[in-house]
């Protein structure tokens, strides 16, 4: 048994076709994404919506490698940074169109993840955790010190939003508009969610879970663990890379500090607070931990103290995260109604 299994609340993946309830769920999610910015008109809160969408992308990506494949990766900030810097530099230095840079930036992050998996093949648990942390430190230091390329701590300024989509006869879609940018990022996150959801419910998901639960037994069943670990790492870090590609034009500036190792911990916290080993959990975790600090902004410096405390308290008292809390609540409601 893997050491991760006691905290994973997910039931075993079942082979089910694209069930009607899932389709309904995805449609509801799409509807929420469409409607949300119509109610949230304040540009400050619209900014937070976009940050939430970026964080959702980061969290579900990390959960794929951490919760499903069971690989202790605590260096996700590296891939986030690689995506952000690679795409921005391709646009600004080589004049590539945004979407080409987006694809290359995402692939570059995915490739870096596959390379890191070279270590995951040979390392277990904490060794991998530290190796991934070390990788994140190296990437951060390169961003900080390769001044001729990244301008180091001074940062890159004036990054333009993605180009407007102009279809003749239809009003132009401008991504300088926060609402449209939110649609773009959240829509992309939803697509990634659906792809990951289908993947974890397919034999791929079972293969990854088998590796997580017991790598030796999985290998004895003919599972090529190194290949699948590389796959999980590549998918996970490509998602983080894509998040980075959106982050840069959204914020408009890039500084290495945005991709310091503490960012990895923030993403990790979102996965844990939401519920590791489920895909829906990290979505709620990401939204909660993005929005909660904003509500706490009125208490100033206490904000991040509460953030840290909530992470610790969730681990101590509700290690399955929000998902487990819901599950317990539902069970309690069912058993009560059953008694009557």
């Amino acid at each position, binding site marked *: 048994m893997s*050491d*991760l299994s*006691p*905290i994973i609340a997910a039931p075993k993946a079942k082979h089910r076709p694209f069930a009607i309830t899932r389709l309904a769920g995805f449609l509801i999610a799409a509807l929420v994404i469409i409607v949300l910015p119509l109610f949230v008109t304040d540009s400050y809160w619209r900014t937070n919506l976009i940050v939430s969408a970026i964080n959702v992308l980061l969290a579900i990506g990390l959960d794929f490698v951490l919760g499903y494949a069971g690989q*202790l990766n*605590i260096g996700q900030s590296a891939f986030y940074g690689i995506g952000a810097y690679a795409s921005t530099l391709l646009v600004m230095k080589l004049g590539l169109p945004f979407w080409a840079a987006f694809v290359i930036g995402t692939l570059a992050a995915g490739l870096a993840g596959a390379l890191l998996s*070279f*270590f995951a093949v*040979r*390392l277990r*648990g*904490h*060794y991998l*955790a*530290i*190796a991934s*942390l*070390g*990788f994140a*430190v*190296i990437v951060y*230091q*390169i961003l*900080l*010190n390769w001044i001729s390329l990244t301008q180091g701590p001074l940062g890159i300024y004036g990054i333009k939003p993605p180009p407007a989509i102009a279809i003749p006869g239809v009003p132009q879609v401008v991504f300088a508009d926060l609402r449209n940018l939110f649609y773009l990022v959240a829509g992309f996150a939803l697509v990634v969610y659906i792809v990951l959801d289908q993947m974890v419910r397919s034999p791929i998901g079972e293969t990854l879970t088998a590796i997580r639960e017991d790598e*030796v037994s999985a290998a004895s069943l003919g599972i090529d663990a190194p290949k699948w670990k590389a796959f999980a790492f590549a998918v996970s870090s490509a998602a983080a890379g894509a998040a980075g590609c959106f982050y840069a034009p959204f914020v408009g500036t890039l500084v290495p500090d945005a991709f310091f*190792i*503490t960012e990895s*911990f923030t993403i*990790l*916290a979102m996965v*844990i607070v939401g519920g590791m080993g489920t895909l829906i959990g990290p979505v709620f975790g990401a939204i909660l931990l993005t929005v909660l600090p904003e509500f706490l902004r009125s208490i100033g*410096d*206490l*904000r*991040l*103290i509460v*953030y*840290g*405390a*909530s*992470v*610790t*308290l969730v*681990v*101590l008292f509700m*290690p399955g995260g929000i998902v487990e809390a819901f599950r317990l609540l539902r069970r309690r409601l069912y058993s009560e109604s059953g008694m009557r």
Partner: protein
Amino acid sequence: MSSIVLQQAINGIVVGSLYVLVALGLTLIYGVLVQINFAHADIVTLGAFAAYGVTHLLSGNYLAGIAAALVLGAALGWLINAGIFAPLRERGSELLPLIATIGVSIMLQNTMLALLGPIPYAFDTPYSNQVLRFGTLFLTMQNVLIILVSSISIGLLYGFMKFTFLGKALRAVSQDRETAGLMGINPNHLIMLTFVIASALAGLGGAMLGPVLVLTPFAGTSVIVKAFAIVIIGGFGNVEGTILAGLLVGLIESYTTQFLDPGLIDIVVFALLLLTLAVRPTGLIAERREENV
């Protein structure tokens, strides 16, 4: 040229021995529990601030500051074990305590930030300005103090582990907790003892790193990432390996600063770490732990 090489060797050993103090704590806890305490970084920072505060309150008595940091570190170690690691032990997860202590670390750093502010503190000890010269080489009294205190504490720890009953019990627990329990050793007490010793060392290291570091609430993080590299290079849970790797990282740091660029220190250290892991997945000096299949 050769005097520069020698001078940097001295500097490297001074900084390296402080890294050893911090890394030994991590490796002791790992040896007994197979767990990582991420808040170890903040014990280093708090140790540095405690030493700073006491030194300034007592009109420059730095030694009292070091003692205060040691005591504060021990107390924090006790608290973190009682509050986080002990309740999580029965769940048997390698990830949960790591994340819980990341939460503790965020809490501690931001509490310090609220109380102390982001501006670095200038921590000068009375010993920093007393210089001993040997030809072209020089040593500050601070460096002498660091080498003395750290070698005494490392020596005491080594002797304690090797020769006392408690030390032997501690090693027994780290080899096989259940069998040690059957031999009448209470593993919970020894785990607590390990945390207290490990954290006292971190506090001690912080007190002496304070004058070297950019002393902000986040100072410990830069130390802890190196300490992680050290425990991996030396082999998790391996005391001798940690000492060697700590000095090695200290030397790499001072030579990188001298001959390359201070900005490259972390890159060189972690490149070495990844290289080590690629060649020998359990560190330079292998961890003695069998895998249960």
